[in-house]
């Protein structure tokens, strides 16, 4: 049996021999002499012909195939599941009950072996009919399917509506009993071919007040950090020609003679999200110091190494992945990271054929581990609180005595120069950067 589930003409490959066998049995069930005795079944005020009870089905199977109760019930269930028999009382519940609940045989027109494409068009017509026939007839997932179909095959909607109307009109001309039978048959067919999907699949997420509130919350949280909205201290360099703001918030230590204290706003921002902390070089370094105290620094190092693989040169991937394995994943590695066994197994398997994303699962696992565990504890730690207390709130730049005289605008070393010098020196200036990645700046 191959993994290709569809054969040349698009039918479920494995099913055809099973379907043929099932149909042979169904036909013999309906044999006038040797088959199941069918009766009329009363449904409210209408009489439905050719119905049988669940018990009848089970008993017939026991007699015919010489099997036990349990097995007969199991086989009967399959007939219901594949739509050859459908229940009258609770049509949505496609199970067989060995009691006096009523069942009917599905018409051959709707048998699975007819290889009807069960297309979206058909389904749309069916749902449209239901909708027109009775308001509120469509249940939740059917409504969603209907809306999704309306969007997807919108170009045929005129036809869908027209067909639905026509079919309803034609069915009105039939006897009530026949009409109900037809409706039951069609309903059963669609329940088999379009079973209710899990809500996530078709769900139109509702745009409640809560979901929109996140925008408001985000804007409010970041407003003090938005220079255009609220200015910045000591001053906006573009306005005052004073680049103190940039120097104070510099990400590289290269341009500062010594490690200066960060601003309060900057340290506060690390508490907004784990990503904010990691995106700031200083924040990352502080976090690393904290993790070293907790003896879990290898997590952050591993994460960084994975980033490097993901965003680095394609040619270097195999050697980088190998390095990562030796340092972090191999049994007895010097900086072994604690990954759950399932992910570890999957990763080690993938390492046999290393590619850019082979470490993704492991990286994700460690990332969320840090996010859920180390990060919140870091925010509550003395290390962070001390830094926040010592962080400075810069004074606003004094306005120049001669406002019409412009301050001299100093140029800054180009980032391109930074690379060249580092290369010349042959030293790695940064403890946690890799050439070419964003962490350099």
């Amino acid at each position, binding site marked *: 049996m191959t993994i290709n589930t569809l054969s040349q003409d698009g039918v479920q490959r494995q099913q055809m021999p099973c379907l043929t066998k099932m149909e042979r049995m169904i036909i013999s069930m309906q044999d006038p002499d040797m088959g199941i005795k069918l009766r009329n079944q009363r449904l409210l005020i209408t009489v439905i012909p050719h119905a049988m009870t669940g018990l009848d089905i089970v008993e017939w199977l026991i007699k015919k195939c010489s099997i036990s109760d349990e097995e007969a019930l199991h086989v009967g269930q399959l007939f219901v599941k594949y739509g050859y028999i459908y229940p009258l009382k609770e049509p949505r519940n496609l199970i067989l009950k060995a009691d006096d609940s009523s069942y009917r045989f599905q018409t051959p027109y709707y048998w699975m072996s007819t290889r009807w494409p069960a297309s979206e068009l058909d389904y749309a017509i069916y749902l449209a009919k239901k909708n027109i026939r009775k308001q509120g007839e469509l249940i939740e997932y059917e409504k969603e399917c209907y809306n999704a179909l309306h969007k997807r095959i919108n170009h045929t909607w005129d036809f869908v509506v027209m067909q639905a109307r026509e079919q309803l009109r034609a069915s009105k001309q039939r006897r009530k009993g026949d009409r109900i039978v037809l409706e039951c048959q069609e309903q059963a067919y669609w329940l088999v071919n379009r079973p209710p999907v899990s809500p996530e699949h078709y769900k139109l*997420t509702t745009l409640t007040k809560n979901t929109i509130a996140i925008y408001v919350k985000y804007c409010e949280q970041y407003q003090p950090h938005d220079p255009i909205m609220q200015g910045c201290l000591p001053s906006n*360099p573009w306005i005052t020609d004073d680049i103190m703001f940039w120097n104070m918030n510099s990400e590289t230590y290269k341009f500062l003679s010594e490690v200066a204290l960060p601003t309060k706003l900057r340290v506060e921002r690390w508490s907004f999200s784990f990503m904010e902390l990691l995106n700031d070089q200083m924040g990352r370094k502080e976090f690393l110091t904290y993790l070293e105290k907790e003896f879990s620094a290898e997590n952050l190092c591993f994460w960084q190494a994975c980033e490097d693989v993901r965003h680095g040169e394609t040619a270097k991937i195999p050697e980088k992945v190998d390095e990562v394995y030796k340092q972090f994943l191999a049994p007895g590695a010097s900086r072994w990271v604690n990954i759950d066994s399932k992910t570890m197994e999957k990763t080690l398997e993938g390492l046999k054929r290393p590619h850019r994303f082979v470490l993704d699962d492991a990286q994700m696992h460690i990332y969320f581990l840090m996010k859920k565990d180390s990060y919140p504890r870091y925010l509550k730690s003395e290390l962070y609180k001390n830094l926040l207390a010592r962080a400075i709130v810069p004074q606003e730049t004094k306005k120049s005595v001669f406002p019409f005289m412009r301050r001299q605008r100093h140029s800054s070393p180009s980032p391109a120069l930074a690379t060249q010098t580092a290369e010349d020196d042959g030293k790695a200036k940064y403890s946690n950067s890799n050439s070419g990645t*964003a962490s350099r700046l």
Partner: protein
Amino acid sequence: MCDQTFLAITFGPCDNCSQNKPLMNIYLKNEPINYCSLCVELMACQGLAKGETIHTLKAESETLKTKLEEERAKLHDVELHQVAEKIEALGQFVMKTRRTLKGHGNKVLCVDWCRDKRRIVSSSQDGKVIVWDAYTTNKEHAVTMPCTWVMACAYAPSGCAVACGGLDNKCSVYPLSLDKNENLAAKKKSVAMHTNYLSSCSFTNSDMQILTSSGDGTCALWDVESGQLLQSFHGHSADVLSLNLAPSETGNTFVSGGCDKKANVWDMRSGQNVQSFETHESDINSVKYYPSGDAFATGSDDATCRLYDLRADREVAIYSKESIIFGASSVDFSLSGRLLFAGYNDYTINVWDVLKGTRVAILFGHENRVSTVRVSPDGTAFCSGSWDNTFDLRNILYGFALYWHQGLYIGVLHHPVMSVP
């Protein structure tokens, strides 16, 4: 046998194409006929079956559409601006041009900031790509591309290279050298190859990978060192004009907008189109993520900008005004996401309150269409590039201009007079 089916014929010759196929029972004018599924599909797509009036069917379809809207309303969908009613309105904004960068000989098409918050790379129609220290207004590097209309340019995250491309259908990466005598073009790396013009490019989190979008309707991810195509993204049915990477934790998605009026969200690993939005009435010129990554904004030729929420999978706000008639060419958010800057083809820049949906400022100052608007990485300023040219009046008499200024304006908004909530 049990059931007499009224839908008796299941296999046989189709009434339309006469081929032996499984048949579908459909109705035309109360008459049951048997078509094969292919003929049914064809007929359905033609819109009308024989003998029906458009009028009656349209009425029916309108009823169904109304029913659909009613169902939607029942889901308690709320508009963004309704929730934002309680927030304080923004005060008056005063904007001043702080720097004007002159040096391009022709229309400025694209601009990108360096992560050092003061450098800019810009490209123009005449094929020139210039790297500026916008703070001092000094030009630091200049490259002349072998083609005109360089529509895309991007600064590398490390600040050590720039990428650009346009009508040459390629994206090339130039490492920035500080040796004054060195010809930058000598070290150029040809990375991307499309079959039509390059409309937009962006480095991913490192210097090693570039994402490009093209007039050939595709986007693609490339390895810079080798020029190898890592992933291609197919799904647009017309030129793709813009793309933007998501600022997410997992860093795996991006959004693109194109001339097919669609904005598509893609998974970079698999190349799959994971979400699609089609509510604009014309080409989407620009797409940009909201800073949190939960939504993105678009600017379009239909003179509106719209905000789309990714989890709700729908449009949540439209930024438009009757007096705004020309298309928006470029959009960008302020750092907090509260303001949306949009450059328009009527030479103005409109600043929108993202939450309330109102316009808070309109900025004049360009003398031709604004082609690009970018906020600096730390949000201290935003920069706009345009198709300006200022003429020396004398020369108009001769029918041509001798002296061209093409401007890049660096604007900064004074923080407004308003009470801080």
